[in-house]
C-alpha cells in the first residue's frame, strides 16, 4: 500500500509535472554545476557514463572522450536531449535497464530527492550501484534542507513551479540582466505574451535554478510552498490526525517586497486524488520562500559564488510575483478537498483565513475569479513538485547503512545541494 501511494505521489507530483513543464526546460545551454562538470572531465578516455535522471540532457555534452548515455521518465525532456544528439532512453530509476557493472561512472543530479520514501531512495541508489563496475564512481546531488540563511522546516515538501517568475514592468523594474534565450522561441514568446520581451527562464532542476540564482539581482522572491508529512510517517497509524493551520502557526518570514503584478499561476492540484486518500498527509506549512529563493540569491550572490560560472540568466522572480502566486495558491487551495493544504503568508493572513473558512465553497469563487487569467495562463500553470530535502549527512548515512556496495569517498555542500561521491566496491560474501 505504501508502495502504491509512493508511486502515485511520484506520478502526480514528479512525472506529470515534469511532463507539463518540460517545454520550459529545454535550454540545453544551461551550464553544468562546475563540480559535476569536473567529475565528468576527470573521467579517463573511453569511459562509459550514465546520467540517471538526465532531464533535458544538459550534462550529456560534457567530455567528448567518454561515452555518455542518459535516461529519464519524462518523454518530452528525453526527446529534447535526443534532439541535441545524445543517446537517451526512457526508464524508471527503480528499474534500470542496464546490465550489471557496465558503467564506469554514474551521475544522479537532483533526482533521488523526488522519490517519496526512504526505501525507494535506497532502491534507486542500489540500482545505480548495480550498474556501476567495481571501482566505478557515482556522484549524487540532492536538495539540501539547510540553505545558506534558512532551513526548510520539514523535509517533505511540495514546491510550486512557476515558469515565468519575472513579471513585466512594475515595482522592481527591470533587473537589467539579459535573460538566457530559451531555445523554444515560440513557447517563450507566447508565455511572455503581453508582459515583457524577456525570454523564459528555463531550468531542468533545482541545481539549475540554483545556478541561475547566482546571477540574480538583489530582489528577493518569495513563493509559497507546501509541506507534507513524509509518506514514511503517514503510515504510522498512531499519528493519523488532521492538523489545521491556525493564525498562530503562521510564521512571518523575510518580507516580500513589492506589489503584486505578476502571474497568477494556476495550481493544477493534480495531487487532489492522493490528497484525498491520505488526509493526514499535510501539516501546517509556512512560507519559506521561492524555489530560487531557497538558494537565497542575495547571500549567495554576495558571497561571490562565482565559481558557478552561472549563465547570465536572471531568474529569480521579482517579488511582485509572489503576492500573486500566494494569493492564487491560496485561492486554489480553497478548491482542494483538504482545506488545510494552504500556504500562508503574514501579509495575506486575513485573506487566507477567509479562504480557509470558505472551504469547499471556495472552489466556485476561486474558479470564477481565476478563469479569465486561467485560460491565458494555462501554459503557466503552477504545478507542485514533490521533494524530500536532505539533512546534512543524511545522504552519506543512507549509503553507508543501506548500500554496502558503495563506499562514500567524500561529501560536500554545493550551493543548495548535499553531494556525495561514492565508489563501487566488491562485496565478498562468505
Amino acid at each position: 500500500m505504501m508502495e502504491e501511494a509512493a508511486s502515485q505521489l511520484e506520478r502526480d507530483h514528479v512525472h506529470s509535472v515534469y511532463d507539463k513543464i518540460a517545454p520550459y526546460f529545454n535550454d540545453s545551454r544551461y551550464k553544468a554545476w562546475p563540480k559535476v562538470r569536473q567529475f565528468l572531465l576527470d573521467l579517463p578516455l573511453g569511459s562509459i557514463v550514465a546520467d540517471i535522471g538526465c532531464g533535458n540532457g544538459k550534462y550529456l555534452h560534457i567530455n567528448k572522450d567518454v561515452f555518455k548515455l542518459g535516461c529519464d521518465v519524462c518523454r518530452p525532456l528525453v526527446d529534447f536531449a535526443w534532439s541535441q544528439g545524445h543517446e537517451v532512453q526512457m526508464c524508471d530509476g527503480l528499474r534500470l535497464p542496464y546490465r550489471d557493472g557496465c558503467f564506469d561512472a554514474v551521475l544522479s543530479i537532483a533526482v533521488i530527492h523526488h522519490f517519496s520514501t526512504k526505501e525507494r531512495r535506497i532502491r534507486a541508489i542500489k540500482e545505480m550501484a548495480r550498474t556501476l563496475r567495481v571501482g566505478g564512481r557515482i556522484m549524487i546531488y540532492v536538495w539540501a534542507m539547510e540553505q545558506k540563511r534558512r532551513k526548510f522546516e520539514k523535509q517533505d515538501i511540495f514546491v510550486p513551479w512557476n515558469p515565468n517568475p519575472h513579471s513585466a514592468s512594475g515595482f522592481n523594474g527591470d533587473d537589467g540582466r539579459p535573460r538566457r534565450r530559451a531555445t523554444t522561441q515560440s513557447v517563450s514568446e507566447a508565455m511572455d505574451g503581453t508582459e515583457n520581451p524577456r525570454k523564459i527562464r528555463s531550468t531542468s532542476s533545482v541545481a539549475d535554478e540554483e545556478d541561475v540564482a547566482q546571477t540574480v539581482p538583489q530582489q528577493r522572491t518569495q513563493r509559497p510552498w507546501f509541506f507534507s508529512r513524509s509518506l514514511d510517517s503517514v503510515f504510522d497509524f498512531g499519528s493519523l490526525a488532521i492538523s489545521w493551520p491556525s493564525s498562530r502557526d503562521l510564521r512571518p518570514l523575510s518580507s516580500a517586497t513589492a506589489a503584486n503584478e505578476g502571474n497568477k499561476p494556476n495550481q493544477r492540484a493534480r495531487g487532489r486524488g492522493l490528497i484525498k486518500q491520505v488526509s493526514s498527509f499535510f501539516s501546517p506549512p509556512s512560507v519559506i520562500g521561492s524555489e530560487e529563493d531557497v538558494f537565497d540569491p542575495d547571500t549567495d550572490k554576495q558571497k561571490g559564488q562565482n565559481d558557478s560560472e552561472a549563465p547570465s540568466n536572471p531568474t529569480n522572480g521579482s517579488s511582485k510575483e509572489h503576492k500573486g502566486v500566494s494569493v492564487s495558491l491560496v485561492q486554489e487551495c480553497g478548491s482542494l478537498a483538504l482545506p488545510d493544504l494552504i500556504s500562508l503568508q503574514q501579509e495575506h493572513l486575513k485573506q487566507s483565513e477567509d479562504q480557509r473558512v470558505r472551504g469547499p465553497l471556495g472552489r466556485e469563487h476561486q474558479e470564477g475569479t481565476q478563469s479569465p487569467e486561467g485560460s491565458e495562463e494555462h501554459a503557466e500553470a503552477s504545478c507542485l513538485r514533490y521533494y524530500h530535502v536532505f539533512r546534512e549527512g543524511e545522504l552519506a548515512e543512507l549509503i553507508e547503512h543501506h548500500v554496502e556496495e558503495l563506499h562514500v569517498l567524500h561529501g560536500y555542500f554545493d550551493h543548495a545541494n548535499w553531494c556525495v561521491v561514492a565508489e563501487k566496491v566488491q562485496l565478498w560474501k562468505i
Partner: protein
Amino acid sequence: MKLLTHNMLTSHVKGVTKGYPLLIKATEVKVNEVEFNPKFVCRMIPKLEWSALVQAADQLGHREELPGELVADYEKNEDFLKRVHRVLLEVEVIEGCLQCPESGREFPISRGIPNMLLSEDEA
C-alpha cells in the same frame, strides 16, 4: 539508439534471468558519420559484450565483417577499429523495437529513443 548503447541494455522484466542481449527489430536505421577516435574505440572494446555486438550488427545487416570473436592485437589494427567504430557509433536504430529474449516482451524504439519503462505488473 546506437549499438554501443544497445550493448548495455537488458530486459528487466520481473522473473527474467536471461534478458540480455535484447533482440533488435528495426524498421528504420540510419548511418551517420561520427568522428573516429581509435584510442576511444580501443578502450571501449574490452567493456563490450562482444558477441552481443556482433549479433546486433548482424540483425541490422551491418555486420561489417566483424569477427565472431575478438582477434588479438586489435589495438594496432586500424582497419578493424574503424569497422568497430562504425558499428558502435555510426549505425543508429531510429524506429523499431527491442525484444526480451526470454519473455518476448517488446520495448519500442521511437525517434531514436528506446522506451524501457515497465508496466506495474512487469516490474
